[in-house]
């Protein structure tokens, strides 16, 4: 018996450690898949799940909190997705939370993201249904792209007609652009205009010094100065005494 116990304990240790490792592995994998521990279920219905599969992760605020456990087609435009979520996070998911489907990283594994709501303070029930946000579909993007491409087509067509008439038409703008004679004429006109304005300002100067009109200009200048002085006085008075300023206001009235 002495001899036997020499190896049996080693054998026992060997087997125990081996089985323990196996059980640990099974336990941790089960934990990953939310088989052990308390969980609760939520459902949400989508128009399309865009490739979501059973076993994909459910995220809330960027944390993996559960997995998809059921995807069922209800009718031709509704898919109900069931998810199993850890009980710990239930208190953070309110009744107005919304589910949406996005993709995870470059490899395109899909994830279901639960976005918290704003108003509700009520915690979700087990087996409750939460609202869903329709995910952005590639076909939808293509639709809007097509619309703007159509618009671009119309615009470029009109642009072509416009530039053609620019090059070949007889309108004013076309002439302005193409005809050198027109350009010369414009140049001359502008020169004349300049000369004219110069002459006009000289005339004005002359008029100011004319004795018939001098009085009028002087009057104007005086009025300006008076106004400035009045404003200054009013300001000073205001600063000195509010009451006085009021009285003066009454007087002026």
């Amino acid at each position, binding site marked *: 018996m002495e001899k*036997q116990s020499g*190896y049996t304990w080693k*054998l026992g240790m*060997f*087997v125990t450690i*081996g089985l323990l490792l196996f059980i640990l592995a*099974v336990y941790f*994998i089960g934990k*990953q898949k939310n088989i052990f521990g308390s969980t609760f279920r939520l459902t949400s219905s989508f128009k399309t799940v865009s490739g979501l599969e059973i*076993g994909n992760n459910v995220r809330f605020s960027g944390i993996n909190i559960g997995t998809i456990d059921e995807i069922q087609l209800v009718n031709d435009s509704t898919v109900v997705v069931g998810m199993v979520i850890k009980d710990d996070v239930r208190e953070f998911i309110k009744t107005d939370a919304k589910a949406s489907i996005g993709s995870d990283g470059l490899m395109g594994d899909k994830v279901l993201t639960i976005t918290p709501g704003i108003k509700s303070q009520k915690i979700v029930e087990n087996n409750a249904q939460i609202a869903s946000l329709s995910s952005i579909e590639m076909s939808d993007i293509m639709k809007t792209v097509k619309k703007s491409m159509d618009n671009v087509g119309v615009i470029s067509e009109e642009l072509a007609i416009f530039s053609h008439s620019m090059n070949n038409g007889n309108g004013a703008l076309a002439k302005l652009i193409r005809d050198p004679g027109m350009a010369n004429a414009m140049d001359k006109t502008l020169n004349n205009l300049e000369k004219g304005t110069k002459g006009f300002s000289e005339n004005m100067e002359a008029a100011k010094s004319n004795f018939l009109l001098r009085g009028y200009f002087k009057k104007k200048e005086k009025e300006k100065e008076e106004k400035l002085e009045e404003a200054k006085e009013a300001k000073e008075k205001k600063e000195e005494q509010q009451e006085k300023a009021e009285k003066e206001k009454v007087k002026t009235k």
Partner: protein
Amino acid sequence: MTLNLKNTFEDVGNATLFAARFFKEVFIPPYETRQFLKQCYAIGYKSLPLVAITGFIMGLVLTLQSRPTLVKFGAESWLPGMVALSLIREIAPVITALICAGKVSSGIGAELGSMKVTEQIDAMEVSAINPYKYLVVTRILATTLMVPILVIFADAIGILGGYAGINIHGDVSFYRYITKIFQSLEFLDIIPATIKTFFFGFFIGMIGCYKGFNASNGTESVGKAANSAVVTASLTIFIIDMLAVQITDLFF
């Protein structure tokens, strides 16, 4: 040619009968418990260092070899998951089984072969001990139960080796490494791989015993028995592996 073919089929038939006899005898008392434990010790515990070293090296080498490709795709963070998956699903079971085929199957073949040649088995029969029960059943049972445990050890140590391999180039905390591995594992990765190791173990023991038990007279047949036990067991392991993977693939 025809005779050769006939001989081959006869061999297969004999082996099948031999295996069938195991299932018949394993349930009938008396049980040779002490002999069984002794075989478990010799097969399981004594093979552990060999399996541990191989497992560690496999994990390390696999990590270092697959790293450049994954880096090219910018998927270096998938390295732990990939190494653990390939270790647990395929590499650790097959490598461990092959090592056991080399170490255990040849040992059993040589041992039983020499017993047969020196007429010890006949002597046992004379002294009213069922040699099949005492020698064969205990050994086959021991390999069937010990090889899966050895594979679990190889998995664990291989993952440790992978951790060492990753830390050569980068710096990953052990906790993060383990989390990463369990994230990528599913039951489907572990259960079929574990089930197939029982078959590996059974065939390693069965082939070793069969070859030894049927050694013809003469010393050279002992070497022959040991040799052909290793070759046949290794080949059988690959065939079982192929079948197991195909069946798993079919159902899941």
